[in-house]
Each structure stands twice: as C-alpha cells, then as structure tokens.
C-alpha cells in the first residue's frame, strides 16, 4: 500500500511497548505472539500458533494504543506496529476478560467433575485466573445430546463447546479433511459432521488435544484418568519413521495417552491417530510375557487351530530359553546364523544386536528391512535432506507411496508447505495420493515405472528438467509398492542423481526405527556409524575386533538360504516375515526351512507362531534409549511403564546371549551402549548423549558415497495383464493396529482397485468378486472402480488383514503382472 519502504530497507524488528517494557517484535508478528515471546501471557482459546488467527473467542482482548488512544483489540488479530503500546493488565483489559468469560460460560455446563478435561482445561484455568468469579446469567443453558461419537475415536459434547473454531480450522487447514463444520447459526451454532459422514480423519486426535474445553474427547481416554494422577515422560513416537515428539502419559503403570509435543523440525505438535492411539497394544492381553518353548516342532501345527497359536508353546524361564538358544548357536555351522528385523527397537537395541551378530554370532546375514525398503547403502548413503528442507526446497519431488497412509505427519508438513507456497510439489505415483491435489504437477505411472517416466521427463524437453536444474531439489523417495523390486526405486535415485546432481533425498522409510537400525549396521555389508564393512572406521574396528569377512545376505537372501536348509538359527527381531515380507511363499519356506527359529517379540505374530523359542521383548514406553527418524535425526525415547511379566529390552537379550556364548558385549546399561555408540560412530559423536534436546540432533552424513545401480528399462507389460501395486493404508493388517483396541476395527478392507476403464475391460460391475492371478498364485477378491488409479494398475492393500496378498508376489521378479478372471466356481487356493 505504501511506497515509503521503497527507499529504505525494511526494519528487521519492530519496537513495541508491552506492559511498560520495550520489546523487539518481528515485523508482522501478532501482538499475542510478541507478548508470549516477551514472557507476557495473554489468555486465549481460539488462537493457536500453528493455525491462522480468526478472533473467534475474544479472550485475548487487550488494550492496544497505536497513537489514537488505547482500544480494546483482539491481540491474535493485530500485528505489531512501531511505537505500539500494549497493556495486558489494565483495568479495562481485566474487565473485558471478565466479560468475555462470563459470556463464554453462558452455555457451558460446568460439568467439570465428570469432564476428562478437568484439571488441564484452559477454560477452567483461565476462568480461575481471569474470570469474574460469578455469573449474572440465571437463564436456562442450551442443551444437546451428551457426547455423540463423531468418529470411532472422537466424541463431541456440544454443550461444552465454546465455538472457538480450533477443531474445524484444524480439520480444514492442517489435516485437509473438512468433515466437521459449524452448522446452524446464532444461538443454535454447533460443530457437527454431515449425517452418515463421520470425522474419520487420520488426524482427528489432534482436535481432542487442541480443544480448549472438554467438548472433544478421545474414546480410548474417556474416564481413564485424571490429569493430576498422570505420570509423564517426553519421548519420540516410533510408530512410523517420522519420529514425532510426544508426551507419554500413564496412570497406575498403564499407558493411557500420548500428546503431541510441538517441535519445529518435525511434527509441529501434531500426531496421526495411529501414533496417538497405538498405545493400546502395549497393554494388550496378547503380549508375550514369559519365554516360550515350542512343544512341537514348527511345521507340525496341523492339530492346532489358528486362533490358538500359544498352544504350540509351553512357558519356560529365561535361563532355559537362553540356554537353548545358546546351544543352538554353538551347534550352528559357520555362517549359518541370520538375524531378521530390529527396526522396532531403539538404536541401542539395534547396536547391541549388530554387535552380537558380527562379534559373537560371526555372521553378516542381518537385515532390518524385509525387502520393503531401499537397498541399505542407498537408504543410508544418499545425500540426505531434512523435513524442513523438503518443506522449503524450490521443488520437492515425491516418488514414494501415499505419504498420508505411510508417514502421515510428513504428509501434513508437506501439505502445509505446499499451501504456504514454500515449496512446489511434483508427484510421480501409480495412484492419486493425499498430496496430489496440493501438487503443482502429478504424473501417474504404471507400477515400477517411475524411473522411466522421470527419465523421459528429464531427458526430453519438459520444463521440469529446467526447473530441477535451476533450483534446490529434495526427492522424497520410497517404495510405492512392495510388488515391484527395490531396484525399481533405486533406479529413481540413479536417474535423478545422474541428471540433478544437487538433488538431496528424504528416504521415506516406513518402520519406526528402520533408519536407526540401518545406521547401527543391521544390514548386510553395513556397520554402525553409516559405514560399510568393506572399510570399517578405525574406532569401530578397534572396538569390535575382527569382523565377518564375507558380505552377508539381505532379507530375500536369508529367506532363500533358509528355505534351502542353509540357515541353522534364524533370529526374528520383532520381524514378521510371513505378514510383512512381500513374497509370502518364500517367507513361509524360509521360516519353516530354518533350523531353529528364535523370535524376540512382544506378540505371537504369524511368524512367531512358527518359532521354536520365543523371547518376550519390552516395547515402546517400557524402555529408554534413542531412536532415529527418516531424516537421520536422533532423539530420545523414554521409559514410563514396566514391561509385563519378564519381558526385557532387545539389547539386554543380546548382552545375555553373548555372555552365554562366552563373550562380553561390554555393556550392562542403555547409557553404556549410548556412550559406546557415541564413541565408535563418528557420525553420532556429537549427536547422542544423555542430554539430547527435544528437537534431537541430525547425525552427520554417511561415511561413504553410495554406488548407484545401473539404469535399466522396465520390462514391457503383458498386454492382457494389469500391474499389481501394493499400496499401504495407515490402518493395515499389522500388529500395531490389530492389537490396539481403539484401532483394530478401523483396518481397511482388502479390495482390488482399478481405473473405471480397466474395470470395463474386465467386464464386471464394481464390487464383483473376481480371481486375480499372478505367476505365483491366485486370490479371490472384490474389484472396484477408482478413478484415482492410473490405467494399467491394479491396487491392493498390503499387508492385508486375513488376506495373503504376498501369495501373488515373487521377490525375485522386478514387477508383478496379474490378470483378472471373472469365471465363477471355487476360490483358488
């Protein structure tokens, strides 16, 4: 509006006076925020620093003088201006606050004694601090049906609502799921969903956390505890690899609630509902609480029904179980021991098992991934970008699965960045995703062909090539489907790094601490500290001594070797290959072909049910240490509750096994392992220690340059077939969902989804059950039309509850082509 700024540089700060004290505020900063930074708290209900201001509640009225005399203004709506004088404690301000609270309480039921929010309620607290003490209103309050479920997870009590617009704003602005809105008007205004359309957002739990009254309550926490009875520790969520900062709260030694903690670099205070409500699995009655030994050998379970996997086992004690494991280790042929998994634990767990495998078990057959990620050298070695960098790059290229389903809070961050215009999203995917509508450009491709699409774009005269060449580029790279080989995704990295050498990568690994496990060397040919075994760093070589010479097998190799009887002892470290390994036939052959299967796990998963010895593991919330998110950020996880029975952390099991094998890993506490990691991993030297801040620290880059696989052209598609794409859903067939009471019922249905034109070619109505055949096997599933699927693809959920989608997948094939048959008859086996 003004051209006065033309001649002079804009001032970097704005001087304002708040309660008589001069404060340097940022230009454009809101008065409420400037005051907050200066240590002056202005009461508020609707204002939230991560959302736009709306001035709904009027609680933040303060006297602001901009030269025309003091006026009562909403400090969440007024940006600072030079020489502004603010008084947050004047008599007029106080009268205004009293008046606003009296108005807000007109219809509030004051049922604090039975309200979950009581004790931590901003309305309660601010009424005590700023309220008038009594009300002049004697009229009847408005009444609504007491809490109505607006989704499976969230209940709404409209009587308590003060219409601050926080939840509705969050649903619209942040989550992008405007499924709740103000309806009616005037005295009837209320938040509601559309009839029959519940608030089934993946982020609905955040509205409960930011609700300044008890209007929104979370079904899993309702009437569970009182805030003043809660014990709390700050931790880092390990449900997926985003690593959101959380406050873990327990009551009577049971986890009852997770709250998002606002840290700038990662989650901005938000959580997804899976992370927030997954704690139910920790106290699940199905936990393994004592070591188990199989009464009958694996593979002979025919006389036992599926729903009673525990009947195969008899409980034993740790001495017996570990003795049996040690005996199996001693009896194993050299190089015939393998470790699968390790992505579920802490960095310390991963380090201990990595050290146990290399120095005691003398094996390099270790893999924390189940052929569902990138090759470890690339995952660790690609030039890394942080989430913040992905949110501020000139172009962020998405070549990964649907982030809303896989890494929900990363989805929120990127969505927010795209909306704010701080980055441009370009997507290449086999389906539309949660971010498609926020992308400036979305290219669809057939499964496994992202690399060739990208190559055509970058080598042709497409403007994208110029855009990528001239600006900063972050590539969010992940497996968009496990039915195509990891090489298909690795090839994307090759294509980009050859043409856009300054591009950096954010590897969209899924599993909680998979990045930490890889960083700790739980992959063949890798060592702790993001190093290759081929050139061990001197610190590590001196600490670990001689290392296994040959490079070991990855997960596919381990299972293949086990299937042919070459593995005598197979450790499953929280791994469930029968569910999670893409090729379920190979997984089954591998697990049954291994000599002794030792499962270190907290649940009897499909694979654990086939084990010979089960060692109960402590889980998140029951152990401390550090974890590493997909950026390589190391942050602390806290211990709050006691593990059930005699379950113990993975690292402790490793240490005891080492002792039984006659060697000492050299640590007896988590702190000692953390110290050892800091000592032997130059990448982590400054990153981890007892005083890790909430933000965590991004460990430094890999000690090697990754070798990019050669580019190759994807195989031609069988003209009669469709390309199988295994997409992920947030609520899938995994243990986290199935064992958490709040989430179990939300698991997605397993259907085949194809483009409507492809469905027409199949020649059946949407919803018809069809047979899908691959080279490997066949399944009978309903098929439905979905315009979001690229032509030529057929999309199915993986892992699926109760459906063995992996039966269609061959781990050695680059892609999985399938054909749909519509003839009736018996379901194929």
């Amino acid at each position, binding site marked *: *509006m003004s*051209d006065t700024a033309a001649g002079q540089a804009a001032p970097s700060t704005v001087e304002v006076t708040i309660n008589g004290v001069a404060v340097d505020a940022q230009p454009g900063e809101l008065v409420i925020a400037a005051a907050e930074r200066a240590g002056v708290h202005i009461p508020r209900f609707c204002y939230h620093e991560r959302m736009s201001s709306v001035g709904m509640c009027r609680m933040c009225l303060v006297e602001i003088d901009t030269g025309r005399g003091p006026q009562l203004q909403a400090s969440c709506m007024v940006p600072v201006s030079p020489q502004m004088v603010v008084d947050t404690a004047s008599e007029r301000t106080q009268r205004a606050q009293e008046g606003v609270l009296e108005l807000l309480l007109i219809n509030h039921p004051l049922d604090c004694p039975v309200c979950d929010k009581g004790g931590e309620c901003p309305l309660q607290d601010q009424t005590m601090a700023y309220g008038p003490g009594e009300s002049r209103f004697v009229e009847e309050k408005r009444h609504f049906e007491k809490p109505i479920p607006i989704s499976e997870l969230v209940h709404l009590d409209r009587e308590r609502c003060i219409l601050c617009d926080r939840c509705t704003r969050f649903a619209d602005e942040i989550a992008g799921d405007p499924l709740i*809105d103000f*309806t009616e008007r005037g005295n009837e205004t209320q938040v*509601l*969903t*559309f*009839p029959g*359309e519940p608030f089934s957002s993946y982020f609905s739990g955040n509205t409960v956390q930011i609700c300044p009254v008890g209007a929104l309550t979370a079904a899993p926490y309702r009437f569970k505890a009182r805030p003043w009875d809660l014990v709390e520790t700050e931790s880092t969520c390990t449900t997926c690899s985003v690593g959101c900062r959380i406050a873990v709260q327990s009551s009577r030694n049971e986890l009852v609630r997770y709250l998002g903690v606002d840290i700038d670099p990662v989650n901005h205070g938000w959580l997804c509902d899976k992370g927030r409500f997954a704690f139910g699995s920790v106290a699940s009655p199905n936990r393994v609480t004592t070591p188990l030994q199989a009464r009958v050998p694996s593979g002979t379970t025919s006389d036992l029904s599926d729903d009673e996997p525990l009947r195969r086992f008899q409980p034993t004690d740790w001495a017996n179980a570990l003795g049996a494991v040690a005996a199996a280790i001693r009896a194993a042929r050299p190089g015939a021991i393998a470790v699968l998994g390790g992505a579920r634990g802490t960095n310390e767990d991963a380090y201990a098992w990595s050290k146990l495998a290399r120095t005691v078990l003398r094996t390099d057959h270790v893999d924390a991934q189940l052929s569902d990620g990138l090759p470890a050298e690339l995952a660790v070695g690609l030039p890394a970008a942080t989430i913040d960098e992905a949110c501020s790059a000139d172009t962020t290229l998405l070549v990964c699965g649907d982030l809303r389903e896989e890494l929900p809070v990363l989805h929120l961050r990127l969505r927010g960045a795209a909306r704010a215009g701080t980055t441009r999203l370009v997507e290449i995917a086999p389906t539309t995703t949660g971010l498609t509508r926020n992308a400036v450009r979305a290219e669809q491709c057939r499964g496994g062909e992202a690399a060739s699409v990208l190559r055509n774009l970058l080598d042709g005269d497409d403007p994208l090539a110029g855009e990528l060449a001239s600006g900063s580029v972050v590539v969010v790279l992940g497996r968009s489907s496990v039915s195509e080989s990891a090489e298909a995704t690795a090839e994307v990295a090759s294509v980009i790094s050859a043409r856009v050498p300054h591009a950096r990568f954010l590897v969209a690994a899924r599993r909680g601490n998979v990045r930490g496990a890889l960083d700790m060397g739980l992959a063949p040919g890798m060592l702790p500290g993001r190093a290759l075994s081929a050139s061990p760093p001197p610190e590590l070589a001196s600490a670990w001594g001689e290392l296994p010479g040959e490079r070991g097998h990855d997960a596919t190799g381990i299972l293949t070797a086990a299937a042919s009887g070459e593995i005598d002892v197979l450790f499953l470290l929280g791994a469930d290959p029968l569910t999670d390994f893409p090729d379920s036939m190979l997984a089954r052959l591998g697990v049954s072909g291994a000599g002794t299967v030792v499962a270190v796990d907290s649940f009897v998963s499909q694979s654990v049910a086939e084990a010979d010895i089960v060692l109960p593991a402590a889980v998140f919330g029951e152990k401390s240490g550090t974890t590493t998110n997909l950026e390589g950020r190391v942050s602390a996880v806290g211990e709050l509750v006691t593990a059930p029975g005699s379950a113990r952390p993975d690292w402790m099991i490793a240490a005891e096994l080492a002792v039984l094998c006659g060697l000492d890993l050299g640590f007896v506490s988590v702190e000692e392992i953390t110290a050892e990691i800091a000592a032997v991993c130059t990448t982590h030297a400054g990153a981890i220690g007892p005083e890790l801040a909430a933000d965590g620290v991004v460990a430094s880059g890999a000690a090697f340059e990754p070798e990019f696989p050669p580019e190759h052209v994807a195989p031609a598609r069988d003209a009669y077939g469709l390309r199988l794409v295994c997409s992920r859903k947030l609520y899938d067939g995994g243990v986290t969902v199935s064992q958490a009471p709040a989430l179990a019922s939300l698991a997605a249905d397993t259907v085949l989804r194809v483009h409507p034109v492809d469905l027409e070619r199949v020649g059946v109505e949407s919803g018809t059950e069809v047979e899908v055949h691959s080279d490997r096997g066949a399944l009978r599933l309903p098929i439905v039309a979905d315009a979001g699927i690229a032509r030529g693809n057929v999309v199915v959920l993986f892992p699926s509850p109760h459906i063995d989608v992996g039966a269609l997948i061959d781990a050695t094939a680059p892609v999985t082509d399938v054909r749909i048959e519509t003839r009736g008859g018996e379901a194929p086996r």
Partner: protein
Amino acid sequence: MTFFTEENRTLAHEIIGRYPKRRSAMIPLLHVAQAQAGWVTEEAMVEIAELVDTTPAEVLGTCSFYEMFKREPVGKFLVNICATMSCALAGAAELMEHAEERLGVRAGGTTPDGLFTLASAECQAACTEAPCLQVNYRYRYRVDADGFDQLVDDLAAGALDDEIPPHGVTARVRQHIPAGRAVGAVPPEAVAEEPVWLAVADGVSSGGAS
C-alpha cells in the same frame, strides 16, 4: 450423482464455470437444488459437495447458516406472517391465529396436502402496510382474515401460479451469458497488490494514506 436432473446438472456446470474457484458456486448451486426439490435434501448437499470439490460437511455448514435454505420439506407455498412490531400492533397475532385455524396447522407446520407451510417471520420491511405476509417471499399487504382466506383459496386453485412460483424457485427466466460475452473472474492469486477495479496512477497508490 443422482440428485440433479440432467438439465440442472448442465446448469450447475455452467454456474461453476463462472468462478475461478469451484467452491464459490456452492450457494448458487444450493439455490438450484432448492428450486428443484422445494428444499435442500441431503442427497443434494452430497452432490453439490462433489461438484464443487469439498466435503458435505462444509456444504451443510454453509447451507444451515442461511435461514432461507430449508433442510426439511416445506409446502409448495411458504407463508411467512410478520410478527414484528408494526404488524404486531396492527393485528399480526390475530392474523396468525386465523391462519392456523384456516390451514389447520400451527406456525412452523405444513398442511397434509403439502401445499402450505405456515411460519412466523421477523420484520419484512413493509411496516407501512402492516400486517403483512409473504408467500414464497412475494408480499401481501394489510392482510385481514377475509383477505387471508381469499389468498389461500386462490393459491389452492392455482389462480396465482403465474405470479408465485413454487417454493425454491428463485427465477423463472434464467439469464445465460454467452461464452463470448462473459468477462470472467480474475482468480485471487492473479490479483495484484491493488484490487483490480482500482486504477493505479504512475507511482501513486490509490489505496489508503502512506
């Protein structure tokens, strides 16, 4: 897509095309929906949400804000009797009582034949003509008991159909702007610093003091 008739769906797309953002067409489409069914059904809201690329909840939020979008069936004729000051002084309460008796429903109700919905309304800005009422928002002035009976008879007989269309119909003749003459709207992101309708002289800002 099951609610809109073929003709109205074409109209909906034409209306959507007038705006740089699809969502802006929400209220015009609610009018089309109300014109088609006489009230705004849930199916209509779901379909409008799909058409303007938002959620049904947002359509409900907008729709329910406006009193004149009816979310329950109303009769062919919505009779709003003013109950505010001037009309009240001039006998609106008596008129309402008579209307209730004549139609056999209480204020707010609809006659079983689906012809009339009787409602009490706030000031209709015709105080000099009190007591007044509106039938589908068409005025009737200085209405007494006999006048009301006559009105009801005429409406029921279809004698006023030319003047008073069924509830929900906003206009019988719809203006269509030929594509060649449409000015089109400037999308907000294309708007420069100044509002587009303000001329900006060289170096001098037209907006506000500097």
